């Protein structure tokens, strides 16, 4: 019904071109066309954050971004966090601090935390709690997620020191 438009962006470090409908949401492009099913759909009102991806250095909810808006941009999804077979410190910390249970919120959550720690490498507990308030988790009660963020922050600080 609608004309497809070809868009090009950098996705997890690689140049990607894809044809999308003008009304197509980024989350659907990622999940249905580019086969990156890590980012999830948990609501349609931008509340749950399961679809969080990193767009040009900002955490965004890909269920409320049109794919066409991403033409020429740089995108990072959960699938792009692991580098050269080594987990990102945030992923490793979520495992070690038992920061996940069912795993459905996890991709959006770790993608958000990746960006949070770039925005604020040494956050207080309150800053962490506010910093992940756009990502809902129904399983963990957040306490171990906070611990995981603190652990990741420590590790990243040591890496860069």
């Amino acid at each position, binding site marked *: 019904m609608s004309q497809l438009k070809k868009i090009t962006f950098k996705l997890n470090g690689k140049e990607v071109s894809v044809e999308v409908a003008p009304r197509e949401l980024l989350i659907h492009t990622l999940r249905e066309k580019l086969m*990156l099913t890590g980012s999830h759909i*948990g*609501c349609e009102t931008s*509340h749950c954050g399961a679809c969080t991806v990193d767009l040009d250095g900002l955490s965004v909810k890909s269920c409320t971004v049109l794919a066409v808006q991403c033409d020429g941009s740089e995108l990072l999804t959960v699938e792009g966090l692991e580098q050269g077979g080594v987990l990102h410190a945030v992923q490793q910390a979520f*495992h070690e601090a038992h920061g996940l249970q069912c795993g459905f919120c996890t991709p959006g959550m770790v993608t958000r935390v990746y960006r949070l720690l770039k925005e604020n490498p040494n956050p207080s507990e309150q800053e962490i*709690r*506010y910093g992940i308030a756009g990502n809902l988790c129904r*399983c963990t009660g957040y306490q171990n997620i906070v611990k995981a963020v603190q652990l990741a922050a420590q590790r990243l600080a040591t890496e860069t020191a």
Partner: protein
Amino acid sequence: MGDMSELKEREEKLQGMGKSMLRKEDAKFIRGQGNYVDDIKMPGMLFGALVRSPYAHARIKGIDKSKALASPGVVAVLTADDLKPVNLHWMPTVGGDVQAVLADQKVHFQMQEVAMVIATDRYAAADGAALVEVDYDELPVIVDPKKALLPNAPVIREDIVDKNDLTHGPRTHPKHIFTWEAGNKDATDAVFENAEVVVREEILNPRVHPCPLETCGCVASFDKPTGKLTVFVSTQVPHLFRTVLAMLSGIAESKIRVVGGDIGGGFGNKVPIYPGYVVATVASIVTGVPIKWVESRIENISTSSFARDYHGVGELAADKNGVIKGLRFSALADHGAFNSHVSATKFPAGLFSICTGSYAIPNAYYRVDAVFTNKAPGGVAYRCSLRVTEAIYLIERMIDVLAQKLNIDKAEIRRSNFFQAEQFPFTTPLGWTLDSGDYQTALDKVLKAVDYDGLRKEQAAKRADPNCPTLMGIGLSTFTEIVGAGPTAVCDILGIGLFDSCEIRVHPTGGVIARLGTMTQGQSHATTYSQIIATELGLPASDIVVEEGDTDKSPYGAGTWGSRSTPVSGAATAQAARKIKAKAKQIAAHLLAVAEGDLEWEIDRFKVKGNPSQFKTMKEICMVSHTGNLPAGMEQGLNAVAYYDPPNLTYPFGAYVCIVDIDKHTGETTVRRFYALDDCGTRINPMVIEGQIHGGLTEAFAVAMGQQMPFDENGNHLGNTLMDYFLPTAVETPHWETDHTVTPCPHHPCGAKGVAESPHVGGIPCFTNAVVDAFAHLGVTHMDMPHNAYPVWQQCNQLGINQR
């Protein structure tokens, strides 16, 4: 005796029971490589979108599909008339009722399923759904269950208006479903007549929704050449799902495969069979291609079950010292438009009969009246066993009401009424035999940890200060849970006993595959079951693979709900492992040329008693079991399957304290401290248990402080998105302090009880008790949930304490 450090090293290597082993499940999820139902893609797959009713009660005069069928990408539009030839427009429910799969001539609740549009992608399906024209004639609506049984109230269910019995006893009104009672009414009434003190309170458990982060959905795939139906579905009960599909469709059960995959949270929401699943299945059979149907969040909250909606009345009779002599509870249960309440067949009001809680109450009686209204059906147990939150909320509230009436401290009144540790096993007047417990020790430990006496002093000082801007409340909850359904003699669903299962295969080099009838949704089954096997068999947990959810692979079981996985499947796992261990012992005796009685077990090996240099490790035995060097007549292999029918349910318990500070001027409640002590018997993985407690407490916080599903008088749902329905973020969620005691379950092979639901069941009354306690000195005895700022401010305003 072996060298202690060497023994410790061997034990460490196993990572068996008691170790906080990191989770096996995490590796895929942290990489975004989980496989949830909406991640599944199959060649030729089409998408289904449901057309739903905007009205809560209306007659359908006609459905015009023509515009939808002309829409690009739309392949088919199915309505009740299309399902009639295969007799699938209605389906039986576990509550003994029937439910419309697609609305047949009328709709009974808002958002009821009316048609499904099948199209080439989800956008085309949504476009098509918007173009289906349904002509409705609105009918009068019943929203308030208290008005459902009025003489002239409109009839909702014309299809069963002449049915006098919906399998749970006589009906007295077209909207009456059943009346269920238990206990000795006459004896209890007599106790109340002669009691020194009687208290009564109306207590609501509001309609709420479990709201897992992943909504419900399926991919149904019918393969015409083989006649085999595969359904990938986000379900907590894959085997029961398969059986129901066989019953509904007439397809041989051997030709149906149900696959659970990864489940993005369940909390009871994913126990039922929803209409969307049935329509998607029919659509796949008709079209011959896979059909995906995944609901939106609005659909999920509006229609895929609800929980609670129990309008209760609690009464306690006691002596003037606060010793309870009698309990009389009743509840009016709003079941919505169809009785799809999830329950064991013999318990239409679930396990509500646990309502005597942790207290030695000699006389008890309760009655539940269930009615139809124009709301969505469902009635799932939201992170609890069937109706247990409702029951425990009532008793934990009422004991506080009694304490206030008699001016007795709320900890003291609990002490006066507890079963004592030496009284176990204890049979309650409503028939449950509580297995083990030590309630007094648990409460004492918690009170000491929070300095309860100091808190009460602080509270008294604040109450005495007229300028104090806040009210301070101290809530207690000393609950007993009932989980692990259940003995097949009393517990079944659709005639299938609630046993569960485990099959273990041991490989020549010591690797193990275990398959179970349960279905993890985040509870860490792969980790927990591996640790049970590691301890039982002396093989490292790291080499144990656990599989669940694929009905073609795993043995039959009733799935994961009601905290039944560890109590039932965990027990089956230990039993299967013990069968293998018994065979391994025979092989060890044969290899060491001694009698079995001469052998003793040590961590990972059988040793000859008194001759420690003579031993065979399990790893060695694994290899030998695959050779011909076996005792005469023994078959090769080290495999076993166990089906476990629990002799009783398990009764985990806990003692919680919550301290709140309430702003008198805004009604805003701050949780200052929440201290939770849980006793779930033997602790298999402390890290996992603590995670489950955190999650359960957070869901209790959500229910107590903000969740509800309101309706207007026309049956319009007023809160079916995450804009309105409260899911706490990290900001609101309190910090949890956890603690434990260990009172093993006497009838579970490992001594374990269920745990993940305790914090929900015990946490909800603890929050309410804290909020009400803040107002107790002002004569307030009860406030209904949720305790968000507005109703709490209303309470302050009514008391005139919000003036500056």
